[in-house]
């Protein structure tokens, strides 16, 4: 029996000696993080799990034109536009801060975005989680300047958790539970708080072009006049720029506006053509 063991040892050794040197090196990819789940920091209107890398300043300029069904007189919406511009800066690879200005209600924004969990290729999390917190302050003239108006009435807030998985090189999906609060609403019939669940995805058509879709379902509608936001678009990446072209039923470009206060209906053709252009500047 003992001889048999020794014999086995000898046989195995002669096989092992001829074995490839690569077997010694193994194949450890466990620590590698999945990257580029989305091309941009936004799926379309809403935030994606991505944020600017450490030391990168990202400038995004966004436009939404008027409704396409407004006819030739308005050049199918191109005569009117809403815009938003934002600067986001990566303090670390996991935390970014941002400021933005929207032409809609002359709204200023400040935000913090942080990566909480990163998807790994092997032996790690199957999903990535990022959180996003923003405060919005409109700066339009008071509707009733004769009464006492408080600054806090201008404020509203959005809190989001983005949960995403890159299923393969082409396909990524994201769930976005969202809570929005407005300090002051126009009518008693409008709720101050609303909850929504977002679903976003992208499918890469080529290395540098992807098809994106995004939907926010209002779980608690602020008011029955408001509809759910649905957007479809393309991402086109060229070096340091990402161009996003899309059609959406939301004209607002910040969370309170497009998740809570969308009024356009796809069924009636109240659709807005729009684009986002993002440019990254390395500041390190």
């Amino acid at each position, binding site marked *: 029996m003992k001889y048999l063991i020794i014999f086995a040892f000898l046989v195995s*050794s002669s096989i092992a*000696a001829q074995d*490839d*040197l690569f077997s*010694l*090196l193994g194949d450890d*990819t466990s620590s*590698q993080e999945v990257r580029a789940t989305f091309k941009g920091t936004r799926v379309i209107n809403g935030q994606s799990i991505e944020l600017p*890398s450490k030391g990168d300043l990202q400038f995004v300029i966004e436009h939404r034109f008027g409704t396409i069904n407004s006819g030739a007189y308005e050049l199918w919406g191109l005569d009117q536009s809403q815009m938003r511009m934002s600067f986001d800066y990566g303090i670390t690879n996991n935390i970014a801060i941002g400021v933005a200005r929207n032409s809609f209600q002359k709204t200023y924004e400040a935000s913090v975005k942080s990566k909480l969990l990163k998807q790994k290729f092997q032996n790690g999390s199957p999903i990535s989680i990022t959180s996003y917190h923003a405060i919005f302050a409109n700066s339009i003239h008071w509707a009733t300047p004769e009464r006492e108006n408080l600054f806090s009435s201008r404020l509203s807030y959005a809190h989001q958790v983005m949960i995403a998985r890159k299923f393969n090189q082409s396909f990524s999906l994201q769930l976005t539970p969202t809570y929005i609060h407005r300090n002051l609403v126009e009518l008693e019939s409008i709720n101050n708080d609303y909850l929504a669940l977002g679903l976003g995805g992208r499918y890469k058509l080529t290395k540098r072009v992807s098809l994106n879709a995004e939907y926010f379902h209002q779980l608690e509608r602020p008011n029955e006049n408001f509809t759910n936001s649905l957007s479809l678009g393309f991402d086109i990446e060229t070096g340091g720029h990402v161009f996003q072209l899309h059609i959406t039923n939301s004209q607002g470009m910040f969370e309170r506006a497009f998740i809570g206060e969308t009024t356009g209906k796809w069924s009636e053709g109240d659709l807005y053509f729009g684009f986002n252009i993002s440019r990254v500047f390395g500041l390190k």
Partner: protein
Amino acid sequence: MKNIFIVLSFLWVSPLLAQKYMSRSAEVYFLSDKDAVEIVEATNNQVGAVIDLENGAIAFQIQMRAFHFDIALMEEHFNENYVESYRYPKATFRGSFVDLPKDLSTPQILTVAGTMEFHGVKKDMEIEVSLSLKESILQGDAKFDLLCSDFDIEIPKIVADKLANTIQVTVKASLTKL
């Protein structure tokens, strides 16, 4: 009986390991042509390397995603658009020293002939390597050029006059005895 067992197990271990040197932290640095508008450079210091001094066999294994760039966006584009690391997660080189002298106490310039597999393309190459053995550390250094076009790495026309086709590769490896 006991003695026989010890001797035999010694025999089992010795031919397998005695002359093999290995590292999991060899460094590969690459630089695209300095004259190009966009300088692309990156370092990977998690490269696996094995050299068997008995038969002169050599093997390198490079995880493509472990290349670190100063510019994060460049790193993303390198992986996603150029080397396609999701499809070809590693590059390998396997070969052997053409002639391996017994005495390596002073650095020797030697030729390694072998096959580079990178981006799914295999190419036979000869590489000049400086090799020395001091205090049981086997030190190997090499510098050579690769052409993107040899390995089917596509440079889009729009950036073709900014990015160089020639990549200078520098390898530094300190291998310890297994």
